[in-house]
């Protein structure tokens, strides 16, 4: 028997494969095609204090081996999430991690506290969403602000705190260290890379917000590099993501130092991507005669 289980700062996962925030909503839609209980964890779309309507369309376009999105923080607010969606997700035997966004530290703290009181399995601070004007990206690219929001939330909650980092920085290890020093139990990286595309017929930007977040296979080398750099710099576990489509992509992140990985854009290409990666990991480890997923974490050979 291959042991795929992972303990992420107290979050017990059957396997290291999660779904990335914003690509899986609150699980309901995908639950019709796959058994959520098989996942390592479900990470929800970002939740804010009040309902948000998100950005105007068009919100998406394709780029080579990737997509640009500018969904923004469209969501129904934490109260309706707790009432309508958390109970549904609780019906599956899978840890539920809730992605939290806000305009200011107060909003991050309030939403996180409510989630902690509702005993979600973990809170993931989205301090790196490039698609909101205030907050968001600001926190994620300024080291002092990262420290401030992380320690404020840390004090307010009793559940594991995951901090999701933005790749749009000169030095990802600085952001990582500051987040860990401020109390992050786990780091999640990377969020999307700021990008832009222009329709050469209409001369208009492809997204109504002009710029958006690049995800998908195109960004994988950037993500693997950052996971590797951060794994050298901090001691906490890392959730790696960015362009994971197949099992070998997941293995790359594990070798670079990620304890768990998340599948985002690939869910759109193949709704069973996460499940296929879980199966694939077992096969991969068996083929190489390992017994536990933990034996390959960080084992890139220099």
């Amino acid at each position, binding site marked *: 028997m291959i042991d795929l289980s992972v303990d992420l700062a107290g979050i017990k996962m059957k396997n290291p494969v999660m779904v990335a925030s914003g*690509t899986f*909503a609150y699980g309901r839609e995908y639950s019709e*095609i796959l058994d959520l209980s098989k996942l390592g964890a479900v990470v929800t779309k970002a939740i804010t204090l009040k309902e948000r309507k998100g950005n105007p369309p068009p919100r*998406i376009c*394709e780029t*080579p081996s990737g997509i640009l999105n500018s969904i923004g923080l469209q969501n129904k607010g934490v109260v309706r999430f707790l009432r309508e969606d958390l109970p549904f997700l609780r019906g599956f035997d899978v840890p539920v991690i809730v992605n939290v966004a806000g305009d200011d530290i107060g909003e991050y703290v309030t939403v996180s506290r409510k989630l902690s009181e509702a005993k979600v399995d973990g809170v993931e601070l989205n301090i790196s969403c490039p698609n909101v004007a205030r907050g968001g990206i600001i926190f994620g690219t300024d080291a002092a602000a990262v420290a401030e929001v992380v320690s404020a939330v840390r004090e307010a909650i009793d559940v594991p705190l995951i901090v999701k980092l933005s790749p749009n920085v000169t030095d990802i290890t600085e952001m990582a260290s500051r987040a860990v020093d401020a109390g992050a139990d786990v780091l999640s990286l990377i969020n999307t890379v700021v990008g832009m595309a222009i329709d050469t017929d209409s001369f208009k930007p492809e997204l109504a917000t002009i710029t958006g977040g690049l995800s998908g296979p195109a960004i994988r080398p950037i993500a693997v590099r950052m996971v590797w750099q951060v794994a050298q710099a901090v001691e906490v576990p890392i959730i790696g993501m960015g362009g994971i489509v197949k099992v070998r992509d997941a293995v790359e992140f594990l070798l670079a130092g990620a304890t768990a990985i998340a599948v985002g854009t690939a869910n759109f290409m193949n*709704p069973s991507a996460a499940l296929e990666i879980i199966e694939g990991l077992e096969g991969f480890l068996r083929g190489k005669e390992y017994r536990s997923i933990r034996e390959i974490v960080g084992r890139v050979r220099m």
Partner: protein
Amino acid sequence: MHRVKARVESNVKVAPGIHRLRLSSPEIALEAEPGQFVHVLCGENRDYILRRPFSVHRVRNGSFDLLIQVVGRGTTYLSQLEAGDVLDVTGPTGRGFEFTGNFKKGLLVAGGIGVAPLVFLAEGLRENGKEIYFLYGAATREGLVCLDDLREVVQKIFSVTEDGSFGYEGLLTEFFSEVFEECSPNRIFACGPEEMLRKVAASTAGTVPCQISLERKMACGIGACLSCVCRTREGYKRVCVDGPVFDASEIIW
């Protein structure tokens, strides 16, 4: 919703740049409703990664047809498939047309490739004993690819071509009011370019219920990613699952 590996049964070029692909999938064929779509993965190792949505065009014992206009990379890929090839398809998805209510006459309005779901709808309407009128526009005579199929199902077809090579000459929307008055339908069902839909909706506003099928770029195609929204009176709605068919009165253009 299903995810199937659908076998290509046939691929027929019905006009320049338009192909009819017959795919085998008993599950999808059984469940699909007029106005719903399937989401198709167009090849492996491609630099464009999203699935492409296509309306279910017709259903025939255990199979369903897509009517595909070649406009880019994914549709070019699909146009080159041969019988025996296998496609990764999810569906049927979305809210289709509501066509079973208590009414007598339906006017279907198809612009170009927008005819695809309306053939399926016409068949459904006929099964329900409705009188069907069909306003069908395309750039040229060759673009009116479904005329023969429609003739078997509908009461009357009003054809319009931009170059006048068949039927009225001009844009479909120029003839809408005339046709509308001639048939005095109780329901309108329209699919085609957004500009056309907007005009049809405006002409009928408040008179008879009008359902339209919208197009948006889609990522997940199952309601999870919120990439495909359109503006409605109740806020942003997802075209993939709250639509693609909407009541025209809901839409803020």
